[in-house]
């Protein structure tokens, strides 16, 4: 069965520091991978997605993610975090045969001044 694991439930970084949020997936074929962000009390906003081509994907708000098939990973990165990046981040995989989006448990990012 397809699954997504985000090993870090909570991460705290200082403003201006770099960020990496981890995501591992389990799926037999080439997955369609997504990162979403959720601000408190809000719905989910798409940051970026990967479904083919270049394995380094650029998204909105200065985020990027790298697809590594050998490690079954799709980690999210940002070189310099801003206080407004504090939110919950979800990695998700969508399978081609069902179209369902399967989410990880989420990682809450706290940004210290």
């Amino acid at each position, binding site marked *: 069965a397809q699954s997504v694991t985000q090993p870090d439930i909570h991460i705290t970084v200082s403003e201006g520091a770099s960020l990496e949020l981890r995501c591992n997936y389990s799926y037999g074929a080439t997955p369609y991978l997504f990162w979403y962000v959720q601000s408190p009390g809000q*719905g989910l906003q798409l940051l970026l997605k990967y479904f*083919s081509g270049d394995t380094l994907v650029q998204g909105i708000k200065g985020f990027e993610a790298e697809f590594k098939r050998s490690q079954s990973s799709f980690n999210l990165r940002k070189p310099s975090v801003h206080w407004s990046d504090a939110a919950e981040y*979800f990695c998700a995989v969508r399978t081609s045969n069902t*179209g369902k989006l399967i*989410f990880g448990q989420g990682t809450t990012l706290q940004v210290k001044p």
Partner: protein
Amino acid sequence: DVKVTQSSRYLVKRTGEKVFLECVQDMDHENMFWYRQDPGLGLRLIYFSYDVKMKEKGDIPEGYSVSREKKERFSLILESASTNQTSMYLCASSPGQVAGNTIYFGEGSWLTVV
């Protein structure tokens, strides 16, 4: 911009009540979804629909039903609400059946069952 609108943001209902959560999208999307979000569990799929009058069970359909009479509207129904259904419910939609298509989310409905 794609707009997914959940008409009720905050609801408080009593145990045993029938609850309707309404979702409307304005982009003529074929696919619509209902998710439930709980701390530490992420988002779990309740039901989804690929077309009008068509529905499929997700991962946690027990205690829920859905209705899709029109393409733009997808309703989630709790036939007899229970306290363990207190949660945040998110509606989403996407075009076609291409897996690379983006899924767009509404702002969520907070349901408290007392």
